[in-house]
C-alpha cells in the first residue's frame, strides 16, 4: 500500500520532469526535418528556469481569474497523471479517484480557466484566440465522449487500467475494428487538443491566426513559466493515455518491484519518441487547415468513432 | 439452337458495321437484314410454342430458357428492333452530315450491340446473368442517347447512366440476398423456374427484402416515380429510332424482370407485396399524368406517357388476379407497339419541322400528310382512345380491378388516365391541326421513314380490333406464367 503511493509519486515526478524534454525533442525534430539545426532538446528547461526568475507584469484591469489560472493550468495535468497508467499496468493508489471521463473533465477545467484568463485582460487578441480554442474544444467534446463510450462497450469500464487489459490479452483483439478506428480518432483528437498541424501551427507568431498559443500571450514571469510547463504536461499526459492504453499497452511494470518501475521510465520515453517521429512526419507533410475546415476535420474524427461503435455493436450481437 | 442464332446475329452485324466501307449504307442495310431475320426467328419461336412447353437449348437449360412471358418480350424486342432499324436508315441518313460516315457506322454498331443486350434479357434464365444483361442495356445505349453531342443530350446521357447504375447496384444487393435465401433453404440452380418452385421454402423476410430491392433498383430503370427523373431527358434527347427502342422495349425489359418476381411471392401472404406494386404504380401514373400537362417538347410528352403506362402495368400486376395479369400482359404488348409508333411519328415530325417544341409546330397535317396523320393516330392510340389496343388493355385492367373490389384504386387510376388523355390530345391537336406557322423549305420525308410509319401503323390499328389466334395463345401463356 505504501508502495503504491510511492509509485504514484514517482509517476507524478516523471510527468513533471520529463514533459519539457518531450517538447524539446518535438521542436528539434521538426527543425531537423526541415534541414535546419533547431534548438537543443533541453531548451524548454532553460526557458522555464529563465521565466521563473523574471518579474511578472499583470494588468490592473484583470481580476483574480488571471492570477489564479496559471496554477490551475499547472496542477490539472498533475491530477490527471495520477489516474492514468504511466509506468505500471496495475491500478495505483489514486487510480479509482476518477476514470478517463473524469480526467477529460479535469483537463477541460484547465482549458476553461485559460479561456477566461485570455478574455480577462482586455487584450484584443486574447478573446479571438480564446473563442477559436473553444470552437475546437466543443467540436472535440463529442469525439471524446464517443471514444470513451466505445471503449467502455468493449471493456465494460472506463478506468484506463482495465481498458488496457482488453486489448492485450488475446492478441487478436488488437486488430478489432473498434480498436483501430478508436486509435485513429484519438490521434485526430490529440492533434486538435494540443494545437498541432493541421489544426493549429504551434510555432506560429502571428496572433491573428493563433488558436492554442494565444492563452499564454498575456502571461509573464512565473505565470508564463507555469502555463508553459502545464502545456507540456498536458501533452505528455494525453500521449500517455494514447500510447499506454490504446496503441502500445506493453512495456509497463507488472510487478511491484522498484526496479521494474524505474525500468519502465526509459521505455515510456522510448515509446513517446517513436510516436513523436510519426507526429513530426504528419506535421511536416500537411498544411494548416482553414478555420472552418476544422469542423470537417473533427467531423471526420466523429465519423470514425461512430463507425467503430457500430462495428462493436455488430460484433456484440453476434 | 434458334436462341443462339438470335443472339449471334446482332453480334455479327455489329462487327460487320465496323468495316470501313466508303458508304455507310452497307452497315445500315446489314442491320435491317439482321433485325428482320431476328424478328422472323422469334416470331416462329413465339407463335409456335405449345402451351406449357418450354423452349430451351438442351445442354444449356440452366442458362438459356424461355416461357410465355419471355417469348412475348422477345417478340416485342425483335419487332421494334426491326422497325427501328428501318427508320434509322432514313433518319440517320438525313440528320448526320454526309462526310461523317464513320459516325453512321458507329451508330449502327452501337445499335446492334444494344439490340443484342435487350434480346438477351428475356432469354437468360440465371438471375445473375439477367442482372448483367440489364446493366448492359444501359451501358450500351449511353452513347446512343448522347449521339447528337449537344450539351443537353450529354446531360441526359449522364443522368441516364448514373441513375440507372445506382438502381442496378441496389438490384444487385437484391439478387445476392435472393441467392442467399435460396442457399439457406436447400440450394439449387439460380434460375427463374427453380425459384418459382423453391420459394415456399425460403423464409419470407428474404423474399420481401429482395423484392423491395428489385422494385427500387429495376424500377429506376423502368421509370417508376420517384426515380424517373432521367427518363424524360434521355427519351427525348436520343435520336428518334433509339427513343422508340428505349421507350418501347427497354423499359419493358426492366419491368419484365420485376414482374418475373411475382410468381415467387404469390404463394406467401401477398397482400403486402401487391400493395407495394399498387402504390408505386398509382404514384407513377398520377405524377406523370400531372407532369405531362406542362411539357413543351413533344418527345418529352411521349416519354411521360411511357412512365404512365409502366405505372398502369404495375397496378395491373398488383391486382394479382388472373384477369389482372391478362390485362397487364396485353398492355405490355399494346404499349410497346404503340409507343414505338409514336416515337417514329415524332421523329418524322422532327425531320419535317426541325424543331422540338410543341408551340412551334402547327398545321402538321398540311405540311406533310403522312407525318400529320401518323402523329394523330399515335397520339390517339397512346392516350387510350378506342378502338385502339391501349384502350382495350386499360379497359380490361379497370374491369379486373372492379371485379376485385378495388374501387379506390381503380377510381384514381381512371382519373389519372383521363388527365393524361386530355393532356396528350390537347397538345397533339394543336400540333396537327391549325394554320401552318412557317412553311419554309421542306424536304420530303425519307422513303424508309414513311415506309416504317406504314409498317408500324398496321399492328397499332389492327390489334385493337382483332387478335390472331396464335398471338392470343401467346398472351394467355404469358399471363399464366405470371401467376402461381
Amino acid at each position, binding site marked *: 500500500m505504501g508502495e503504491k503511493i510511492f509509485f504514484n509519486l514517482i509517476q507524478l515526478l516523471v510527468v513533471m520532469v520529463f514533459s519539457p524534454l518531450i517538447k524539446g525533442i518535438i521542436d528539434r525534430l521538426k527543425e531537423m526535418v526541415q534541414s535546419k539545426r533547431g534548438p537543443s532538446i533541453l531548451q524548454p528547461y532553460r526557458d522555464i528556469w529563465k521565466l521563473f526568475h523574471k518579474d511578472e507584469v499583470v494588468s490592473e484591469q484583470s481580476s483574480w481569474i488571471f492570477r489564479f489560472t496559471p496554477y490551475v493550468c499547472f496542477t490539472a495535468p498533475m491530477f490527471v497523471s495520477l489516474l492514468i497508467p504511466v509506468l505500471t499496468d496495475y491500478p495505483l493508489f489514486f487510480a479509482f479517484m476518477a476514470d478517463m471521463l473524469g480526467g477529460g473533465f479535469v483537463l477541460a477545467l484547465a482549458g476553461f480557466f485559460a479561456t477566461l484568463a485570455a478574455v480577462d485582460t482586455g487584450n484584443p487578441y486574447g478573446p479571438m484566440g480564446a473563442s477559436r480554442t473553444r470552437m475546437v474544444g466543443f467540436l472535440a467534446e463529442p469525439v471524446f465522449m464517443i471514444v470513451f463510450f466505445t471503449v467502455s462497450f468493449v471493456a465494460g469500464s472506463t478506468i484506463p487500467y482495465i481498458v488496457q487489459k482488453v486489448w492485450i490479452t488475446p492478441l*487478436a*483483439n488488437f*486488430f*478489432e*475494428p*473498434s480498436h*483501430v*478506428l478508436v486509435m485513429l480518432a484519438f490521434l485526430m483528437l490529440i492533434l486538435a487538443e494540443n494545437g498541432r498541424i493541421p489544426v493549429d501551427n504551434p510555432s506560429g507568431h502571428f496572433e491573428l491566426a493563433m488558436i492554442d498559443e494565444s492563452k499564454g500571450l498575456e502571461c509573464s514571469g512565473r505565470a508564463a513559466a507555469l502555463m508553459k510547463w502545464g502545456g507540456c504536461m498536458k501533452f505528455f499526459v494525453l500521449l500517455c493515455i494514447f500510447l499506454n492504453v490504446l496503441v502500445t499497452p506493453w512495456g509497463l511494470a507488472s510487478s511491484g518491484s522498484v526496479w521494474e518501475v524505474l525500468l519502465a521510465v526509459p521505455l515510456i520515453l522510448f515509446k513517446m519518441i517513436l510516436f513523436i517521429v510519426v507526429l513530426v512526419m504528419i506535421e511536416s507533410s500537411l498544411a494548416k487547415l482553414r478555420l472552418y475546415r476544422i*469542423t*470537417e476535420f473533427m*467531423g*471526420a474524427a*466523429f*465519423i470514425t468513432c*461512430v*463507425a467503430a461503435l*457500430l*462495428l462493436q*455493436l*455488430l*460484433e456484440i*450481437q*453476434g | 439452337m434458334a436462341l443462339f442464332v438470335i443472339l449471334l446475329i446482332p453480334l455479327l452485324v455489329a462487327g460487320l458495321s465496323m468495316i470501313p466501307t466508303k458508304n455507310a449504307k452497307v452497315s445500315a442495310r446489314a442491320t435491317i437484314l439482321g433485325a428482320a431475320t431476328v424478328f422472323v426467328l422469334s416470331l416462329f419461336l413465339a407463335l409456335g410454342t405449345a402451351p406449357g412447353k418450354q423452349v430451351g437449348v438442351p445442354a444449356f437449360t440452366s442458362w438459356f430458357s424461355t416461357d410465355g412471358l419471355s417469348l412475348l418480350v422477345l417478340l416485342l424486342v425483335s419487332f421494334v428492333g426491326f422497325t427501328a432499324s428501318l427508320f434509322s436508315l432514313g433518319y440517320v441518313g438525313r440528320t448526320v452530315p454526309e462526310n461523317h460516315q464513320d459516325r453512321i457506322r458507329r451508330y449502327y454498331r452501337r445499335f446492334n450491340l444494344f439490340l443484342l443486350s435487350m434480346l438477351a434479357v428475356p432469354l437468360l434464365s440465371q438471375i*445473375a*446473368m439477367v442482372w*448483367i444483361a440489364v*446493366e*448492359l442495356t444501359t*451501358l450500351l445505349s*449511353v*452513347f446512343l442517347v*448522347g449521339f447528337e*453531342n*449537344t*450539351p*443537353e443530350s*450529354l*446531360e441526359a446521357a*449522364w443522368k441516364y*447512366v*448514373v441513375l440507372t*447504375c*445506382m438502381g442496378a*447496384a*441496389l438490384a*444487385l*444487393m437484391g439478387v*445476392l*440476398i435472393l*441467392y*442467399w435465401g435460396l442457399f439457406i433453404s436447400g440450394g439449387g440452380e*439460380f434460375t427463374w423456374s427453380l425459384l418459382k418452385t423453391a420459394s415456399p421454402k425460403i*423464409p419470407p*423476410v*428474404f423474399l420481401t*427484402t429482395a423484392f423491395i430491392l428489385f422494385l427500387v433498383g429495376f424500377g429506376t430503370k423502368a421509370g417508376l416515380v420517384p426515380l424517373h427523373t432521367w427518363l*424524360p*431527358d434521355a427519351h427525348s434527347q436520343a435520336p428518334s429510332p433509339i427513343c422508340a427502342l428505349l421507350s418501347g422495349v427497354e423499359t419493358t425489359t426492366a419491368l419484365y424482370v420485376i414482374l418475373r418476381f411475382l410468381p415467387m411471392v404469390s404463394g406467401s401472404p401477398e397482400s403486402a407485396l401487391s400493395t407495394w406494386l399498387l402504390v408505386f404504380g398509382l404514384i407513377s401514373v398520377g405524377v406523370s399524368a400531372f*407532369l405531362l400537362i*406542362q411539357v413543351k417538347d413533344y418527345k418529352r410528352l411521349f416519354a411521360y406517357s411511357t412512365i404512365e403506362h409502366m405505372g398502369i402495368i404495375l397496378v395491373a400486376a398488383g391486382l394479382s388476379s388472373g384477369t389482372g395479369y391478362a390485362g397487364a400482359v396485353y398492355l405490355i404488348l399494346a404499349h410497346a407497339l404503340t409507343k414505338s409508333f409514336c416515337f417514329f411519328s415524332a421523329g418524322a415530325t422532327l425531320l419535317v419541322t426541325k424543331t422540338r417544341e410543341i408551340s412551334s409546330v402547327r398545321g402538321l397535317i398540311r405540311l406533310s400528310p403522312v407525318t400529320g396523320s401518323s402523329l394523330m393516330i399515335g397520339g390517339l392510340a397512346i392516350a387510350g382512345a378506342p378502338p385502339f389496343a391501349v384502350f382495350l388493355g386499360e379497359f380490361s385492367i379497370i374491369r379486373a380491378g372492379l371485379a376485385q373490389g378495388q374501387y379506390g384504386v381503380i377510381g384514381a387510376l381512371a382519373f389519372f388516365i383521363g388527365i393524361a388523355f386530355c393532356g396528350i390530345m390537347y397538345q397533339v391537336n394543336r400540333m396537327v391541326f391549325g394554320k401552318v406557322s412557317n412553311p419554309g423549305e421542306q424536304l420530303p420525308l425519307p422513303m424508309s421513314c414513311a415506309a416504317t410509319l406504314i409498317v408500324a401503323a398496321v399492328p397499332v390499328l389492327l390489334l385493337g380490333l382483332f387478335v390472331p389466334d396464335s398471338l392470343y395463345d401467346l398472351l394467355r401463356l404469358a399471363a399464366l406464367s405470371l401467376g402461381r
Partner: protein
Amino acid sequence: MTQFNALMGGLFILTAFGIVGLRQILGSLRLFVAQSLLLAASAFILGATHASVHLFVVAGIVLVVKAFFIPWLLYRVLSHELHAKREIEQALDVTTSLLLAAGLTVIAYFLVNPLLIAASDPFIRINLPVGMAGVLLGAYAVAVRREALPQLLGILTMENGAFFAGISIASDLPLLTELAAAFDVLIIAVVVGLLTRRIHKQVGTTLVGVMARLKEE
C-alpha cells in the same frame, strides 16, 4: 480471424465516408483503390477460413480489375481534368454530409437486421451490414457530390458494397457470373469515363451536378 475481417469492414466503411466527403478528387480515387484492396483482403480472409478456392479467385479478380485496372484506366482517361480540380462545394456542406452519412450507416444496419436473425456465421454478421452501408453511402455520394469523377466513384462504391456483402452470403455463385460482373463494372468505368471526357470537351466543365438545362421551363 473474424476480428481481422471486421477491421477490413470498418476501414471499408471509412473509405466510403471518405468518398462522400473528401474534397480532393485524386484523393477520392486513391480511397477507391484502398477500398478495393480491402474488399480483396476480406475475400482472401473468407477464402482462407472456408477453404474455398472460389473465393481466392474472386479476391484475385477484384484485385486485378478494381484495385488496379479501373483506377489506371480512369487516371489515363481523365488525367487532364483530374489534375486541375479540387471540388469546391457540394450540395450540402461536408460536415452535415458526414453526419447524414453516419445516419445512413445506422439505417443500413436496421435494414439488414431482420435478415441477420437467420444468420449465425460471424463473417456474414459483419459483411452484410457493411456491404449494405457501402451501397447506401455510395448512393448518397452520387446525390451529394457535384463533380463527375466522385459521382462515378459513388457508383463504383455501391458495386463494391454489394460485392462485399456478396462474398459472404453468395460465395458460390458460378465463377462465370463473378467474372462477368467484374467485367461489367469495368465497362461502367470505361463508359462513364469516356462520357466525362466528352462532357468536358463539349460543355467545358465536369461539374455535372449543376447541368440543369433540361427542365419544363
